[in-house]
C-alpha cells in the first residue's frame, strides 16, 4: 500500500475532510457550516472507498448528502427568518471547549500511537464487499435489519406527527 499516488490521494481526501469539518465547527454562519458539511461527507465517503467499503460509501453519499444534509438545510431555512435576522450563531464555553478539543485529540492520538498489536489478524478486506454484505444481511444480521425497518417506519410517523402544522379548530 505504499504506492505514492495512493498516498497522495489519501492525504488529499483526509485534508478535505478535516479542514471542512473544522470550518463547519468554527464558522459563525449557519449556511456556511451546512455547505461545508457537504465536503466533509464527501471526504468521509472517499475514505470509506479507501477502506474497501464501497457499498457503505455509496450509502453515505445517498443518505447523508441526499437526505440528512438537505434536511439540515431545510431546518436552517425554516428556523431563521432570513429577512429579519442574520444567520449567525452565538458561542459559549469557548475556553473549556477549546481545552477539551485539544486535550481529547492529544490523549486519543497518544493512546493510538503508543498501543501496539491490536490487530489480531493479518487478513484485510480486499476488493468489493457488496456480495458479502448481502449474505451477512440475510443471515447473521436479519433481525437487526428487520428491526431497522420498523424503527424507520416509527421515525417516519413520529416526525410527520411532530412537525405537522396546527390547523385552526374547525372540527365543529
Amino acid at each position, binding site marked *: 500500500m505504499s504506492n*505514492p499516488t495512493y498516498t497522495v490521494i489519501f492525504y488529499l481526501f483526509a485534508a478535505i475532510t478535516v479542514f471542512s469539518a473544522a470550518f463547519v465547527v468554527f464558522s459563525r454562519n449557519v449556511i456556511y457550516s451546512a455547505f461545508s458539511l457537504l465536503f466533509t461527507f464527501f471526504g468521509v465517503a472517499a475514505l470509506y472507498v479507501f*477502506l474497501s467499503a464501497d457499498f457503505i460509501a455509496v450509502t453515505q453519499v445517498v443518505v447523508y448528502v441526499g437526505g440528512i444534509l438537505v434536511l439540515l438545510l431545510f431546518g436552517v431555512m425554516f428556523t431563521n427568518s432570513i429577512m429579519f435576522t442574520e444567520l449567525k450563531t452565538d458561542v459559549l464555553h469557548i475556553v473549556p471547549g477549546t481545552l477539551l478539543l485539544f486535550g481529547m485529540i492529544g490523549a486519543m492520538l497518544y493512546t*493510538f500511537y503508543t498501543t501496539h498489536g491490536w490487530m489480531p489478524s*493479518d487478513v484485510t478486506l480486499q476488493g468489493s464487499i457488496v456480495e458479502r454484505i448481502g449474505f451477512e444481511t440475510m443471515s447473521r444480521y436479519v433481525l437487526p435489519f428487520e428491526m431497522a425497518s420498523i424503527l*424507520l417506519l416509527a421515525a417516519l410517523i413520529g*416526525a410527520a406527527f*411532530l*412537525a405537522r402544522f396546527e390547523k385552526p379548530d374547525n372540527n365543529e
Partner: protein
Amino acid sequence: MEQLTTIGLNHYLTISAILLCLGLFAVMTRKNAIVILMGVELILNAANINFLAFSKYNGGMEGVMISLFVIVLAAAEAAIALAIVINIFKIFKSVDVSSIDSMKE
C-alpha cells in the same frame, strides 16, 4: 517517513479522532440547535470511520454491518431531531438552546 507514506490503521484513527473532537466542540460551544445536530453527525461519521477501519484491518464483516446500521439510525435521528427543533421554533420563536428553559408554555 515510512510511517507517513504507508497508509495504515493509525491514519484512519487520527482522522476519526479529529472529527470526533470537532463534533464534540460544536456540541459544547454552539447555541444554535441545528449546528449542534451537525456536530452530532460529525461524531457519528467519526465512529463509522473507526468501525470500517478496524473491519478492514481485521478482515471481518462486523464493522461494515454496524456502520450500515449507524447510517440508518443517523437518518432516523436527523428526521426526529429536525421535527423537534421545528416544534421548539414554533413555541419559542428561536432555536437558541440556552434560551429554552421552560417545560410548559
